[in-house]
């Protein structure tokens, strides 16, 4: 038995935790999508039904939830690209660790750009 799991990608450290986060964000987005298809389908019922339900999306509590959703999507999408590169790019495995931090950096920058703008809309500060 080797004491260190040398040369593994999915056991321990960035390789494992990036996957744990990918899984959690995937499940969260999935459940949101179920609700989102249903709420959008209300446009077929009447304009008033749809407007009544989307107005809840503009409340502070749900507005903050949307920030979490956008963060989850940013991470899942960008890390998904990292997974695809690990699988198909010759140097993917070699750079998986660097790519994880690139994913985190891009997600962070995009989130930092989005969050203030969204909060201005939700809290009517504009």
């Amino acid at each position: 038995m080797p004491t260190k799991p040398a040369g593994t990608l999915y056991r321990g450290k960035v390789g494992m935790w990036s996957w744990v986060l990918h899984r959690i964000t995937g499940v969260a987005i999935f459940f949101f999508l179920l609700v989102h298809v249903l709420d959008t389908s209300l446009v077929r019922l009447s304009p008033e039904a749809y407007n009544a339900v989307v107005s809840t999306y503009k409340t502070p509590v749900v507005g903050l939830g949307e920030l979490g959703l956008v963060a989850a999507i940013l991470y899942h999408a960008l890390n998904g690209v990292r997974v695809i590169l690990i699988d198909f790019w010759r140097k993917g495995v070699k750079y998986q660790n660097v790519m994880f931090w690139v994913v985190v950096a891009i997600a962070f920058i995009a989130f930092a750009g989005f969050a203030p703008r969204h909060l201005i809309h939700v809290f009517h500060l504009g």
Partner: protein
Amino acid sequence: MSVVIEQPRSPRSRKAANWEKYGWMYMRASGALLVILIFGHLFVNLWVGEGIKAIDFAFVGGKWSNPFWQVWDGLMLWLALIHGTNGMRTIVNDYTSKEGIRKALNIALWGICAVLVVLGTLVILTFDPCPANGIAANLPSFCPAR
């Protein structure tokens, strides 16, 4: 009955189609397309203009009067629901140990997926941006009732 795990390194049977491999490839192909579809969706709906504040029936009516957005949202609906459902199937297979529970959860997942794909597709295709039952003020500006 618990799940039977194959002997490691045993050659895979070539008789049946390798669905697990097609699923694996689908996750990657759909994921790549969804990056564009979902980031485009978030940009137009949550970033441009007033963002979440501007979303109402008239906003959706304006978008779905354009075949471009009908195709965009239809593709996103199909790709994301099947991607998410297949991902959930992987997770169910990982964490369930009783065969009956595993089967039941997977049937429920694909049932929900089918219902929502059909519902969403019908909504996009049969949508009327100027319905007669709407209060005129809630309709898009191009509707005759306004």
